[in-house]
């Protein structure tokens, strides 16, 4: 253990796995609600209140995460940096994923506790945290209010159909994101290297060097 260093704090790891569990439940219960005949009447009946409850928990956890990143300064991991530098770095990272990784080339960026995200991870999280998650939370809350009749009359352009469609669209994107996220956790030096780091919080310095890490998955696990 002496030759390892801390990448994720205990709270960040707890936050990640808790959020992952909630997203899994949301996708599952949402699927049951969207295809009610999938598991039958009882599953549908139970899924409706559960989905709402999990949604509220996710919102709370997201807010706690935001607060943590603001207070601890960890939000710096998500900032893209100067555009010129960022563009060239993103191209280098993309080239690694489409060719270098197959040849065993070194990773273009070293991961360390001060800079955990590679340029493509930063961009991904910029979209996830600023577009997709707000879309899901916003449409979810709006549907809850409409269904609970708190908003009796919606404007014409924002009827429940549009809310449902947008929420469903976001769900499909989240499902695709989860698939890619899980796959990219395997792009470390070993297949389970990144997974181990997210479980223990520690990583060997030599394994975080160039060519050994810096995959999208590592940062994805950190989450918002």
């Amino acid at each position: 253990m002496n030759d390892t260093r801390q990448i994720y704090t205990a709270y960040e790891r707890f936050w990640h796995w808790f959020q992952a569990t909630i997203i899994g439940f949301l996708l599952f219960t949402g699927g049951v609600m969207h295809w009610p005949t999938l598991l039958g009447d009882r599953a549908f009946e139970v899924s409706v209140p559960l989905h709402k409850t999990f949604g509220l928990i996710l919102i709370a956890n997201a807010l706690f995460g935001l607060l943590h990143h603001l207070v601890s300064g960890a939000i710096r991991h998500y900032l893209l940096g100067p555009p010129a530098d960022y563009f060239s770095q993103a191209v280098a990272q993309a080239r690694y994923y489409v060719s270098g990784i197959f040849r065993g080339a070194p990773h273009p960026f070293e991961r360390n506790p001060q800079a955990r995200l590679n340029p493509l991870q930063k961009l991904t999280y910029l979209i996830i945290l600023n577009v997709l998650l707000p879309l899901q939370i916003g449409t979810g809350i709006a549907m809850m209010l409409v269904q609970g009749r708190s908003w009796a009359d919606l404007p014409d352009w924002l009827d429940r159909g549009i809310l449902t469609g947008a929420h469903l669209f976001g769900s499909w994107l989240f499902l695709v994101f989860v698939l890619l996220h899980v796959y990219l956790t395997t792009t470390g030096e070993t297949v389970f290297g990144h997974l181990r780091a997210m479980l223990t919080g520690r990583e060997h310095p030599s394994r975080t060097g160039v060519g050994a890490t810096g995959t999208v998955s590592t940062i994805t696990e950190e989450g918002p």
Partner: protein
Amino acid sequence: MKFLFLLALTWGLEVLPSQGLHPAVRLLDAAGVAVHVTGEPLSPERTCGTCHDVVFIKAHNNHKRLVLGWADARNAVLTRSGELELDCLLCHLQAPDVFSRADTIEAGQLGWAATATLAHTGLVERSLVGWAWKGNRFSPSGEVPAEILGLGPPRDGHCGACHGRTVHAKEEVRPHFDRPGDTLSAASGAVFSGQQLRHGGYNLVGRETLTRPWDVHAERQVGCVACHLSPNNPARRLTKRTGEDANHLLFDPRGLTPGQYLLRPSHEFSLENPRSLRRCQDCHDPMLRHSWLPYKALHFSKLACETCHIPKSYHPARSEVDRTVLTNHFGSPRVELRGVQWDLRRSAVSPVEGFEPILIERADPDGQHRLHPNNLVTTWHWEGSQPAGEPSLDDLRKVYFDGQDFRRQVLDLFDRQGDGTLRVEELTLDTDQRRDWVQGELEGLGNRGLQLVGTVEARHVSHGVIGGSWALRSCLECHTENGRPGRAMRLTHVSSPLGRLELTNGLREKGEIVISEGEAWFEPRRLSPAMLGNGAWAWLDRYGVGLLGFALAAVAMHGGLRWTGHRRRRKGL
């Protein structure tokens, strides 16, 4: 002590007069003279008008228009004598003889119609010229004792005489489709009875398990007048005022005294009048029940109570009425029923399956559009331009009948089995030859511009209410791609008869007619895409599955290339 009290109470109830409080009545003729003296027909208006304000009642009575209009239609082609009066006895006599009354009207003896209603009382008997009064049933002062007439408020049987099947718990619900006045039952399958379905005279499929009553309100002694009430009845009036000037009042203490009401009782039982119709919410608060239902307010804003509480009609109802043909010389049209396997008119043991009402959106008095259960009835008729409208029943009789028998040409044209008789199913204009022949005959009688049209109308299903586990509770009844809200209802064969099918105004914007495998169906408009599970977003799902598949393929390819590269490096290639 408690036992003695209950005994006294029970005894007290038993000795209460069953005929109510109405005093003895002097029956008067149109001139205001006692009928047993003059022998003239009874005048309900003069008789009842002695104590009740008949002018007011006639001015506040939508039944008057309906009853008199029906009678006019029934004897339009017959010889008429006398005038038909509004018959108070029809609804207020304990045992009105509706059949004798109908026969008298059909015979054109309109003036005797009200007298015929008394046939069961023994006060009158048929005579050569009409009806004769039996003087020995009258008291020495010329009055009829109250117990003979049994006058009082209408009971379920009175309403059922015209509107549909209302059956006392001790009777057996039996199929009687040829009896007159089955309108509500025939149109919507309504049966108002507290009897359990398994005990009826129907050959209901799975009847041994049908332990529910025909209607839960009837079972619990809530009669017709509890909901279809006189707007100014102080005992039953709705406590909340609906007028714009006083809609803030939860209770209006101003009202008629019983005496004032009996003098001038309103008879406006219009379904459109919110003060004469007690709706579900006037007695029940759905928000206090249905604890299992999520988003109660949303569900109740989209669904009428009847949608879940009348999940099925176990009484067959009309699906088609074909007025282009006559099945007998009385002028009866060909009628097709839904919810029954064979023809109930020919076989009382025909298995009855009942039918599931179609859900159609309509505006409620509160302005909210909700789904309501309906039966769809297609009425085939000729539509002419000269004279405008439908050819008269008399013209149709001339086309099909020679006296009481079918014309020779009709037998030749319609008798497919060649047995010399015509069965109901043979009587349909399903070929060009039959349609053109009938059209030609009608044109020969002066009808011009004839077109054979089938109009589809929705008949609201509002009786046959049930609660508890018999009501719909399963979410999947609605929240599936083929859920109830979007489920179609069969209308007719497309070629039987050969005509143009069209929706009535109320239905046109609610859905469309679709043709499938030679049958016409009404398909309701798809509801909001926000409704879970209704398949409205199937197209988005297709894109989603495509995107997920693409991602999976990309992952598989990327992973495969990584694995291949790893193996090559290990081998030092």
